[in-house]
């Protein structure tokens, strides 16, 4: 039970939010759905003196097409993202990732921007956003900046977001025609599960049936969520086969160990990661069902 006190102020526009977040002499944090901040509050980890409510700012709530990209406001909730036709059509891996977060109650409040800014090791949206090449656009007193999400989130609970900045939205290029996506999450139970391991994947074949493009982004297994290029390299230019996806799975597991080292959970994550990489690739490349 927390008894740490703080102020609450509502911002109606981005400009207002920025001013409040950067007001001198007061440590302020943006508040959207509160699903992370209020848990921190309960645990006595209030590090802010003021919460700036950005949940009603219209620019943070958008979901729209912009040329060959989809723009998703940082304040879009997991529920909204999981159900929106644009996201379901063009970015199904993200829709599924958002759908896998928490529970209906959490999904109705938690936002994509919050998920990214909190940068939990097991954050569900990170693999999908990074796989899809999402760029986070944020506003600072010095002006607008952007960073690929894979560079914005630098480690567990660590981002390169400057102090006083506010993520406004994410720009996600529509994947090329013919690309297929998959998102797989392993949790300890069937619902409301922290991710034990996850994977967002995208792949595309060329006219000759060879892998023209593939992106593999595992989650909850490295401190910085990233594309596993060594596993991807195995697949590029090859015709998909049972043996090929098995090798890719092995390579992904090996790359995980190379990045994160051998840890107490590695004995589980190695074989499990290989399995979900195989399964995602089978789905994407239309290989016959798993055994």
């Amino acid at each position, binding site marked *: 039970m927390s008894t740490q006190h703080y102020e*609450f102020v509502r911002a109606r526009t981005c400009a207002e939010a920025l001013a409040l977040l950067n007001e001198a002499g007061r440590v302020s944090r943006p*508040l959207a759905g509160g*699903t992370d901040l*209020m848990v921190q509050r309960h645990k006595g980890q209030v590090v802010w003196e003021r919460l700036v409510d950005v*949940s009603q700012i219209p620019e943070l709530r958008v979901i729209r097409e912009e040329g060959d990209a989809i723009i998703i406001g940082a304040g879009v909730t997991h529920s909204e993202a999981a159900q929106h036709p644009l996201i379901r059509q063009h970015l199904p891996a993200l829709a599924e990732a958002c759908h896998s977060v928490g*529970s209906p*109650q959490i999904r109705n*409040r938690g936002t994509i921007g919050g998920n990214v800014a909190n940068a939990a090791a097991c954050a569900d949206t990170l693999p999908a956003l990074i796989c899809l090449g999402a760029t986070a656009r944020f506003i600072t007193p010095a002006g607008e900046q952007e960073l690929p999400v894979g560079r914005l989130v630098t480690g567990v609970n660590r981002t390169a977001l400057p102090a006083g900045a506010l993520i406004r939205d994410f720009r996600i290029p529509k994947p090329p025609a013919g690309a297929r996506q998959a998102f797989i999450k392993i949790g300890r139970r069937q619902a409301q599960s922290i991710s034990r391991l996850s994977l967002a994947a995208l792949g595309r074949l060329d006219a000759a049936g060879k892998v023209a493009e593939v992106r593999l982004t595992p989650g909850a297994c490295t401190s910085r969520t990233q594309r596993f290029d060594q596993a991807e390299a195995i697949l590029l230019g090859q015709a998909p086969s049972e043996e090929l996806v098995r090798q890719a799975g092995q390579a992904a597991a090996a790359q995980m160990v190379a990045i994160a080292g051998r840890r107490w959970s590695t004995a589980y994550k190695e074989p499990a990661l290989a399995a979900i990489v195989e399964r995602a690739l089978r789905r994407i490349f239309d290989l016959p069902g798993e055994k």
Partner: protein
Amino acid sequence: MRIQFTLNGRPTTVDAPADIPLLHLLRDYLELTGTKCGCEIGECGACSVLLDGEVVNSCLVPAPQVEGRDVVTIEGIRGPDGGPSDLQEAFIEAGAVQCGFCTPGMILAATALLAKHPQPSRPQIIEALSGNLCRCTGYQQIVDAIELTVRRRAGKEVQA
């Protein structure tokens, strides 16, 4: 800080600290104890309320965020005569209530579901309840109660 919002259909104004969760506001400042506290970290759903029709964990909603919005608690779920609604009746009939502590949250989650999906499948019902923990019933009769309500609303079954 003063917070003005619609609570169970009525305009409500309350003075409370800005840094408390909605759950605390409801239970201690508005004397509405039907919404329960089970974990304070948004994992059990006992504190579920409707916020603009969406089911949320009130333990994780900062109280001032309900300003100008619509909140429904278990006290606001009633039949036309002020007694139990058809959903609440079905809970009793189907054996969905044991200790009753999860029950308000379950009813709110079910209410939110049925408002969006009047004819949900059983898996849809289960998913809608997946954020509400129950330790007594094993859930089956709760799902049965919601299915019973759906059938009755569709005119497929007469209320006993």
